[in-house]
């Protein structure tokens, strides 16, 4: 019976296992043969693929939109100048939904399906923390443009690097002296109740105490909250300064409700621009911010004394003098963070060229090349300003801007130095194995 079946199949399909294997073998041989492989004759012309883990949807969407625009602009600039080691750069984008679980899946997809050389770009700390283990297991470099202390803390792995943007610990430390000196010493913190907000709480508190100030109250707000008025009574009457940092779609509501609650008679306000990123300063209810101060990684509004390379960067990124899209004045950028994409891609280029990167086998060498970096001069590759990279903690240190709201615009009033934010490293990635 079984014999009959076998012969039937043979007759019907005309394809035996032996002939199928033969065919497959021949095809494999053809593919492996020199001259058949794409770019086989000159491997150097094959594009360098970079996987961009992008917050296209979810609560990080506004950042994702602008991270994508800046990434596209930076890649174009690199390609126009001859690419990396003479090879063009190709950006492959996957949406992570601003979701840690999807973030890890996206890293796997990049490594196994798109076969990219490295993964890059993500911002939200929970996505970085969720994705970094996958990058470590797959041994694929993971260049994040995030902000939390997660990378610098040493809790990620050797493949996870943050060379293009400063971390919260350094930002909070560099703000504290200015706040204590100019706004007041009794500070109430209002922050999102998860890792990013906790970094602000944990690092600003000792920093302001060093300046002789104190944190009089801490108001953590759950990340899913959409209304904030109910939290404001927790702010003590004797507060000099409210230090606020909120992220996600509810930021505008937060600032508006704070305005309704305090009016013009409240404490001084010092906000991290995250509370206003991608929000039009002309939005109704924001008038009360007039005179208050903000931290900005890079100024949103064009400043009168900005260098030519900043002007060039802004043009390439497609933002006008008000920091909005040149195509739509209502489409406000995430200027204080998105420069990190531009700078990180330039660092990727520099690292690949330093180790003469050929392909995935050189991934470890590429990480080592980045670790070996120290000073980065301000200029077309680093428009935000001069930076110092610490290879041990895979974290960069830089200058920050403090801006004041004047006539509905942000005007830089102070620029901190790299030393203001510098701190002793608590880890050493270079001692970890690949």
């Amino acid at each position, binding site marked *: 019976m079984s014999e009959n079946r076998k012969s039937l199949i043979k007759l019907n399909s005309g394809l035996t296992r032996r002939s199928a294997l033969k065919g497959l073998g021949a095809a494999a041989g053809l593919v492996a043969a020199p001259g058949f492989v794409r770019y086989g004759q000159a491997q150097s012309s094959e594009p360098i693929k970079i996987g961009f883990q992008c917050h296209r949807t*979810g609560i990080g969407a*506004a950042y994702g939109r602008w991270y994508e625009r800046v990434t596209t602009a930076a890649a174009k600039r690199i390609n126009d100048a001859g690419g990396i080691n003479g090879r063009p750069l190709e950006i492959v984008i996957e949406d992570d939904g601003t979701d840690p679980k999807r973030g890890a899946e996206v890293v796997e997809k990049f490594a196994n399906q798109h076969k990219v050389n490295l993964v890059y770009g993500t911002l939200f700390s929970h996505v970085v923390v969720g994705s970094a283990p996958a990058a470590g297991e797959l041994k694929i470099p993971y260049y994040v443009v995030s902000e939390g202390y997660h990378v610098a803390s040493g809790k990620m792995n050797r493949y996870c690097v943050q060379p293009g943007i400063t971390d919260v610990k350094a930002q909070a430390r560099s703000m504290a002296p200015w706040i204590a000196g100019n706004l007041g010493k009794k500070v109430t913190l209002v922050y999102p109740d998860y890792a990013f907000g906790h970094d602000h709480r944990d690092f600003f508190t000792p920093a302001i105490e060093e300046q002789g100030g104190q944190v009089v109250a801490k108001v953590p707000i759950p990340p899913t909250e959409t209304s904030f008025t109910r939290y*404001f009574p927790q702010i003590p009457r004797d507060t000099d300064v409210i230090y606020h940092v909120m992220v996600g779609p509810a930021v*505008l509501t937060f600032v508006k409700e704070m305005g309704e609650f305090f009016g013009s008679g409240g404490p001084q306000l010092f906000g991290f621009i995250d509370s206003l990123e991608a929000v039009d300063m002309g939005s*109704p209810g924001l008038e009360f911010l007039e005179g208050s101060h903000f931290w900005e990684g890079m100024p949103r509004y064009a400043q009168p004394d900005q260098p030519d390379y900043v002007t060039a960067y802004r043009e390439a990124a497609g933002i006008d003098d008000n920091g909005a899209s040149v195509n739509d004045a209502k489409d406000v950028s995430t200027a204080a963070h998105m420069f990190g994409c531009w700078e990180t891609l330039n660092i990727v280029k520099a690292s690949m060229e330093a180790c003469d990167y050929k392909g995935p086998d050189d991934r470890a060498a590429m990480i080592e090349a980045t670790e070996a970096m120290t000073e980065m001069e301000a200029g077309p590759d680093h428009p935000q300003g001069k930076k110092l990279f610490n290879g041990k903690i895979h974290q960069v240190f830089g200058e920050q801007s403090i801006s004041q709201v004047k006539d509905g615009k942000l005007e830089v009033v102070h620029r901190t130095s790299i030393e203001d934010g510098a701190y002793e490293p608590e880890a050493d990635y270079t001692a970890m194995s690949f």
Partner: protein
Amino acid sequence: MAFGPYFLLATLEGLVTAAVLSLIALGLSLVFGVMRVVNVAHGEFYMLGAVLAWWVASMFGGHPAIGFMVALVLSPLVVAAIAFVAERLVLSRLKYEPEATIVATIGLLYIIQQLALSFYGPEARPVEAPFHYRMQLPWFGYSAYKLAVIGFSIIMMLATWFVLTRTKIGLVMRATQFDRETAQAFGIPVGRVYAGVFALGAGLAAVAAVLIVPIQQAHYLMGHDPLLLSFIVVIIGGLGSLRGTVLAAVLIGLSDGIISMFFSPTLAKMLATLAVAMILVFRPQGLFGAAAR
């Protein structure tokens, strides 16, 4: 701040929540009461109302009140029309079988959400309030618009009550709710009544959404929270009971405002869920619901 002002603020915030919640829950309760359909997509009709409100309001220049008022009329009508079509195309063909309609409305939820993401995008966008007036109380300031939301919501509730109890439309709806077969035998077009009720329910959610966008913002994921809370309200109040829905909404809204201000928002949600469990154990038909026949 002393206890008094604290309590005042918590109460105000709680009342705003209650006002909006009662409109959303009323829609859900009507649909279940008359049609016996658990509309899981109700939160998405609410979201759709907010997104359309942004779209309509952004087309009008001049005083923000113009755009807002047009949105307040247009957005619920469009949402109701969409719900009407969805009812005719999907729910009526499933013969309103409870299991089938739950699955169908879950599907509807995802379809509406993804369409909003595709056409509106992932951003949160504000709608300007029709007026800006900040009331300065001795201890804090409060938005006059938020108080107006409470007022408007009360008017809407009264209007719905009037329609349900004093008009022929209401009579027909109640007859359908009471006994579908007998109503049909008396010549009531049950199918059309159902579609109308479904549209009305979605429209009420959309009205709530238009009222809320100047306070919060329109976002494609905003449908989750009110859905959960309005289910809680409907279960506590009793399905299909207008009185129960309003009372439960005020109860949940106030407890949410007060507990989350004095203790924590998580505790407020926990207590609301606990209340649902207690109601289901001791009075499964809800505070004002009629026992199952």
